[in-house]
């Protein structure tokens, strides 16, 4: 991974933590009941991931290999501890709503995975870009999944936006379908699994479309001189 564009593309799409690596599924499924909840946990995870990647990359040459995993864990746990305190102090309602999933960011495999696979081997600037891309990709999935489930279960988008963005966001909530028409399943764990599965399938479909943009597939090997006629 030398090119920064490669790193970004990798984190956001090709190796997206939520849709391809399938890491961090526990919070991903549990806090995506609404768009705002998903977005908040995504941003908290992004912050921890960036801090962790940068810190680990900076001291990577000083960490003896035998203790590297415990060192990674201590760094990640420290950052999560700081995030939780800041949320408790400045985002109290969201801290209450997300509950145990804020401290559980420590166990998110995306963060440990990037620490071991990337941050401990590459330069600080690359590690930072990787964290932003992976964290951004993860947050994007949380955001889309949260929006999808909120819309299907409640018919709204951006419910409780003021908890994250402050009083100016109180009017941002849109009720797209009448209340009471929602499908409860989307708010429950099975609905979360189904929705995630559909998103993974969608990503595969999009990938396929990007490779073969036309419905007439080009033959892999030209066997004759005459062009294949569209069928």
């Amino acid at each position, binding site marked *: 991974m030398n090119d920064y564009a490669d790193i970004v593309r990798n984190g956001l799409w090709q190796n997206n933590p939520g849709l391809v690596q399938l890491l961090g599924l526990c919070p991903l499924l549990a806090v995506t009941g609404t768009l705002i909840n998903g977005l908040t946990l995504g941003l908290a995870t992004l912050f921890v991931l960036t801090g962790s990647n940068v810190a680990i990359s900076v001291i990577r040459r000083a960490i003896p290999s*035998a203790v590297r995993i*415990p060192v990674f864990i201590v760094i990640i746990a420290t950052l999560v501890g700081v995030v939780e305190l800041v949320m408790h102090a400045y985002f109290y309602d969201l801290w209450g709503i997300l509950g145990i999933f804020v401290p559980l960011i420590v166990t998110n495999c995306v963060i440990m995975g990037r620490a071991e696979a990337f941050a401990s081997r590459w330069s600080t600037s690359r590690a930072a870009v990787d964290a932003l891309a992976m964290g951004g990709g993860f947050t994007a999935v949380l955001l889309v999944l949260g929006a999808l489930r909120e819309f299907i279960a409640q018919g709204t988008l951006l419910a409780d936006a003021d908890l994250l963005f402050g009083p100016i966001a109180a009017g941002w909530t849109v009720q797209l379908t009448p209340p009471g028409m929602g499908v409860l399943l989307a708010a429950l764990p099975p609905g979360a699994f189904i929705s995630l599965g559909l998103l993974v399938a969608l990503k595969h479909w999009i990938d396929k479309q990007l490779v073969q943009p036309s419905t007439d597939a080009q033959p892999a090997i030209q066997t004759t001189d005459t062009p294949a006629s569209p069928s």
Partner: protein
Amino acid sequence: MASPNKPLKGALVGAITLALVAGVGVGLVTGVRWLTAERIAQNDETAVMARINEMLPADAYDNDLYQDRVQMPPATIIGQDHPFTVYRAFRDDGPPVAILPVTANDGYHGKIHLLVAIRGDGHIQGVRVTYHRETPGLGDRIEIAKSNWILGFNGRSLQDPKFERWRVKKDDGEFDQLTGATITPRAVIRAVRDALVYFERQRNTLLAQAPPDAGEERNE
């Protein structure tokens, strides 16, 4: 293989590195904790006061709720396994109100935390759910934001209805269950009933005001 000192040296370097990193980590968290402590304490107090003020408007009492709070010893009847805080509201021209934190352990998905406000005459001023993990759309209608069910406790006492009738209608009681959820309301009804029982037993301690001179109230 080199001298026997090498593995020991390697272990030592590793241990020291880990200890250093841990030291920095602990220092950082401690520092942030110190910086945010006051704001966190304010937030926690504001949250409790907001809940209490839902049931008891701020102009309905004269005292400082936070200052007049009391610590009570553990009381398993209301699900408190540790010493807990009771808030009291007093007014010169009306009944005092004790606000009890109550935990029901038998919710459908675990514990349900409640605040139960009880007037000096043993009647309920109000009940609110502060924490639960009940099913969205079904059990979560014990929240005031989702339905008015919780208001059904207002004004009730151990005489209204009698102790045996403190159940859901399905169990031969007086209280409505929720459509599609019986276990959740059962747990809440039982917890509120037990809060009234606890209040009866501990009323003197719960409503004791500090007398103008520094006399001690007897604990029961």
